[in-house]
């Protein structure tokens, strides 16, 4: 073995690319095998692997450094093997989030999944961290290769997911690990000589082989698709995969789908034959057989969502979230004059229009129908057209749920600003109709009502009470918001609509309490009471005292689906024996539990090695270990806070969460990488200056970050109609200066620390990574409570703190 004078940069870049690709891929894989709630856990898991590796290298470098070459190759190959192996093991652990509070064994299973998935990141990070330690005199070069590789990995995985299945992409990632090991073995001349060839052979086998049974995904048995496929004679008739989701079309000849959500109990018709369309195993949406005859579609008039068609005469309709075409068929059935349908996933439209053209009757090319590929809110913001009816029916945070990202489900569809946009796109007298599932006690419907009231007030409406209608069936509730006052003729029509279908009126202007609670009887007319309270002077008090969070969602707090309040938790837990647990909103407490788990893991992996290794971590001039901890923790939190807040902010501009993640992550990594390279020059330039280099960096970062909070919404608006490529380029351009400055504090600190001790370098690296473990989850939690802007402000404050710690 010969001592190398330069680090294995290509292998480092490749490993970083593979690890970042793996991180994004895991989000997709978990959306498919479980649900999308685990995205934040994945980010934290990755960071944990990185942090653990930092601590491991710090403690063991006396043993590891003399064997650098072999350890590097083994760890790189280990990444390749564990990336696939640990995922397969994790999906066989049998973790079932639905049983989380019933079965005391489930948290343990979650912990096992957490530990297993951090292993591949541990392997990749061991390589990188060890390289930093081994070549402590060249941190800038290593860091920029590391970070440029990672940036490339985020974008490359999107490309990979466009051409292969998620299971296939998993094999490619495994192969990349082996290729990195082979490159390193070659570069570092690790014996035996045939090792690089053997590793490349292994990589080729993985990459070329189509995903086989052993690497198959096993979605939870409780997912809708799994339950459907347990029925005899059901079969998958088409499958599509893209970064937007895994689509499965299922035929069930023996027991037809008959999807008619909340159909009136007075209706006696049966829906026509349907195929079930599942996205990531969730659903189904119905692909309904349509032969141009309207009679079989009569069931679509027996849904609460049909109400607006009884108050408007042959309207021009905008259908948001058109999916497999159910709402378009409903509009056709009711004789809509013109229909614009917006669907985010082109593969679904393609299935409806081409693969199943004979079956579907091609509703998207029927007379008067235009289909647009795009995200709903984005489409509305980017177009100036006005409509008589905007229809959103049972549309969940489809971006988030189909892409599996940032799952405490930020949704820009149901915010005050979004509702204002929709109302701005209505003709005078036009209606916005939003249909949601009924839950008890009311949550969705009241939060939506509160959001609509706030939107109307924000548009300057003096009497929102005259512009709203809320009706409910046994399963769905429909809210109408009118651009104008509801007329008495419309009230007559809506009463007739509800009466003939046994739906209840919950609110309309001038509602008579005697009309309440007639058909679907509730113990108390809670929908009506809630609506009145939200229109009255005690609105704030009502929202505050309600046991679920029904405060309006905003673009700064885009968490419509979050109803959890901590103070309700003990009461619901106490009501477990009576079936109280299902009323808990799971995502939030699980997020908090994951934060605790991550914090404990970080303490264990950072503070423990810190104390154990304390004897060996000597003071560097000006740097006590507490100062190092404070500095690297502060910049770790700050970087992650800004990154996650900007991912969420750019969703609105880039129209899809997955693209926002890929583009924002990539831009941050690449430009932070460039900033990191530049930092040494800055250091040299400012040598002896009054304001230290970090001072300049923090001032610049603060200026960029804070001014973006003010200017981004203004800048975004006129640029929205631009094509995707232009918006992606603009996004990268906007992020570039901010990321460039944010890339500097880490290497500046590292270079300063490395002046005295190698041990401290790995240790600083570990602290920084573990701060990121916690920050990934904490950023989302803070955003839920304080809003995204507050998270950014907090990050700037942390940078200031870091500047204080730096000398």
């Amino acid at each position, binding site marked *: 073995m010969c001592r190398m004078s330069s680090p294995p940069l290509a292998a480092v870049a490749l490993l970083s690319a593979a690890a970042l690709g793996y991180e994004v891929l895991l989000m997709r894989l978990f959306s498919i095998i479980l649900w999308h709630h685990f995205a934040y856990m994945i980010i934290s898991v990755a960071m944990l692997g990185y942090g653990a590796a930092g601590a491991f290298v710090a403690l063991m470098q006396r043993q590891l450094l003399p064997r650098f070459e072999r350890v590097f190759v083994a760890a790189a190959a280990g990444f390749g093997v564990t990336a696939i192996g640990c995922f397969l093991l994790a999906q066989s652990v049998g973790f*079932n989030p*639905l*049983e989380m509070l*019933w*079965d005391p064994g489930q948290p343990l299973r979650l912990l096992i999944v957490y530990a297993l998935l951090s292993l591949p990141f541990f392997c990749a990070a061991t390589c990188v961290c060890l390289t930093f330690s081994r070549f402590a005199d060249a941190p800038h070069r290593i860091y920029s290769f590391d970070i440029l590789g990672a940036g490339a990995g985020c974008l490359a995985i999107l490309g990979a997911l466009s051409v292969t299945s998620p299971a296939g992409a998993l094999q490619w990632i495994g192969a990349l690990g082996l290729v990195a090991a082979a490159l390193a073995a070659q570069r570092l001349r690790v014996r035996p000589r045939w090792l690089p060839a053997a590793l490349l052979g292994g990589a080729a086998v993985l990459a070329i082989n189509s995903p086989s049974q052993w690497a198959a995904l096993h979605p*939870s*048995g*409780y*997912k809708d698709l*799994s*339950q459907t496929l*347990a*029925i*005899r004679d059901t079969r998958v008739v088409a499958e599509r995969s893209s970064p937007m989701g895994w689509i499965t079309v299922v035929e069930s000849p*023996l*027991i*037809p789908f*008959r*999807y*008619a*959500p*909340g*159909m009136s*109990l*007075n*209706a*006696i*018709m*049966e829906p026509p034959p349907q195929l079930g369309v599942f996205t990531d195993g969730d659903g189904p949406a119905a692909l309904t057989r349509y032969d141009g005859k309207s009679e079989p579609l009569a069931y679509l008039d027996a849904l609460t969502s049909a109400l607006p068609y009884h108050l408007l005469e042959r309207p021009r309709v905008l259908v948001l979230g058109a999916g497999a075409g159910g709402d378009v068929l409903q509009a056709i059935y009711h004789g809509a004059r013109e229909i614009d349908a917006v669907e985010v996933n082109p593969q679904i439209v393609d299935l409806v229009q081409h693969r199943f053209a004979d079956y579907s009757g091609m509703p998207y090319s029927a007379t008067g129908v235009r289909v647009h590929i795009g995200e709903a809110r984005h489409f509305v913001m980017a177009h100036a057209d006005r409509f008589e009816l905007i229809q959103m029916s049972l549309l969940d945070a489809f971006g988030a749920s189909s892409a599996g990202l940032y799952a405490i489900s930020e949704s820009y569809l149901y915010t005050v600003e979004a509702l204002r946009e929709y109302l701005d796109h209505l003709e005078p007298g036009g209606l916005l109709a939003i249909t949601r599932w*009924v*839950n*008890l*006690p*009311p949550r969705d419907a009241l939060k939506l009502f509160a959001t609509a009231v706030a939107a109307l007030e924000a548009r300057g409406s003096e009497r929102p009470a005259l512009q709203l209608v809320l009706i409910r069936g*046994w*399963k769905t509730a429909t809210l109408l918001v009118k651009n104008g006052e509801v007329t008495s003729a419309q009230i007559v029509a809506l009463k007739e609509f509800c009466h003939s279908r*046994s739906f209840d009126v919950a609110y309309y202007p001038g509602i008579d309490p005697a009309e309440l609670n007639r*058909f*679907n*009887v*509730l*113990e*108390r007319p*809670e929908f009506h009471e809630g609506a009145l309270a939200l229109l009255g002077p005690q609105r704030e008090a*009502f929202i505050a*005292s*309600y*046991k*679920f969070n029904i405060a309006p969602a905003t673009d700064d707090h885009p968490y419509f689906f979050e109803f959890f309040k901590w103070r309700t938790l003990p*009461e*619901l837990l106490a*009501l*477990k*024996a*009576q*079936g*109280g*647990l*299902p*009323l808990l909103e799971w995502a939030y407490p699980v997020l908090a539990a994951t934060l605790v788990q991550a914090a404990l893991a970080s303490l264990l992996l950072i503070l423990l090695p810190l104390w154990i290794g304390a004897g060996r971590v000597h003071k560097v001039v000006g740097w006590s270990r507490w100062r190092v901890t404070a500095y690297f923790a502060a910049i770790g939190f700050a970087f992650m806070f800004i990154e996650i807040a900007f991912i969420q902010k750019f969703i609105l501009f880039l129209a899809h969460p997955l693209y926002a993640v890929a583009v924002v992550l990539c831009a941050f990594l690449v430009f932070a990488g460039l900033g990191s390279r530049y930092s040494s020059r800055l250091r040299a330039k400012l040598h002896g200056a009054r304001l230290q280099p970090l001072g300049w960096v923090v001032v610049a970062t603060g200026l960029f970050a804070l001014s973006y909070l003010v200017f981004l919404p203004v800048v975004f608006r006129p640029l929205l109609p631009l094509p995707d490529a232009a918006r992606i380029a603009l996004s990268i351009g906007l992020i570039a200066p901010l990321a460039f400055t944010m890339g500097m504090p880490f290497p500046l600190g590292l270079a300063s620390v490395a002046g005295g001790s190698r041990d401290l370098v790995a240790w600083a690296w570990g602290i920084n990574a573990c701060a990121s473990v916690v920050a990934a989850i904490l950023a989302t939690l803070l955003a839920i409570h304080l809003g995204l802007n507050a998270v950014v402000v907090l990050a700037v404050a942390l940078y200031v703190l870091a500047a204080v710690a730096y000398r």
Partner: protein
Amino acid sequence: MMWRRHFGVRLSLLSALFVAAALRPAIADNDFAAQRRDMVEEIAAVARSAAAESGKPAISAAVTAALARVPRHRFVPPDQEHAAYENRPLPIGFGQTISQPYIVALMTDLMRVEPNHVVLEVGTGSGYQAAVLAELAQSVCTIEIIEPLAVEAQRRLQQQGYTRVRTKTGDGYYGWEDCGPFDSIIVTAAASHVPPPLIRQLKPGGRMVIPVGTAFLTQHLLLVAKNTDGTIVTRQVLPVRFVPLTGGH
């Protein structure tokens, strides 16, 4: 003589083992019986306290008596037997669950089953709910779409002597014309809407119960009541005594 003593010791050990083996199910069953009593008592107590708060009648004695008779541990997969009498839902395979016992009691109570009633169940699952209903009704017809579940439930019900239960594999949407009309119906299979044929097969004065929610998480219950004049009224029932407003009623 030594060998004899040894032989004798061995023989008695052996016979003790045989006796123990023979007694084991009996002991286990006794154990389960005790657990079942505890479960029923817990349900009755919870129902009484909820009733006291709400002023509504508690779960009827007939229903709790039925729960006390049905060996729930015989209706769960072997690896779940230990938890059979816990007041929680359990997995039964194929992405399906057996409901939390309190919810079973509440649903059964809402159906108001009389000894001369004919009852339909759509979604047999484990067969436990059918067994509970069979304790109360004249006959129970139950349909399951997942074949292996249907087969297993039928075997269990036969083995436990529930001869008044008729089972069928297939589509529950059209009900079971030959068995009906029904005094009450329970639809535990997920449905996007209430199948119109089931409403037709419900006798005037009959009641239908549909739990709404997902596996492990029953959100609320839908009670469909057919008046004697054939008109339909539904009620949405939250199983739990919970008011959403602080200081609410």
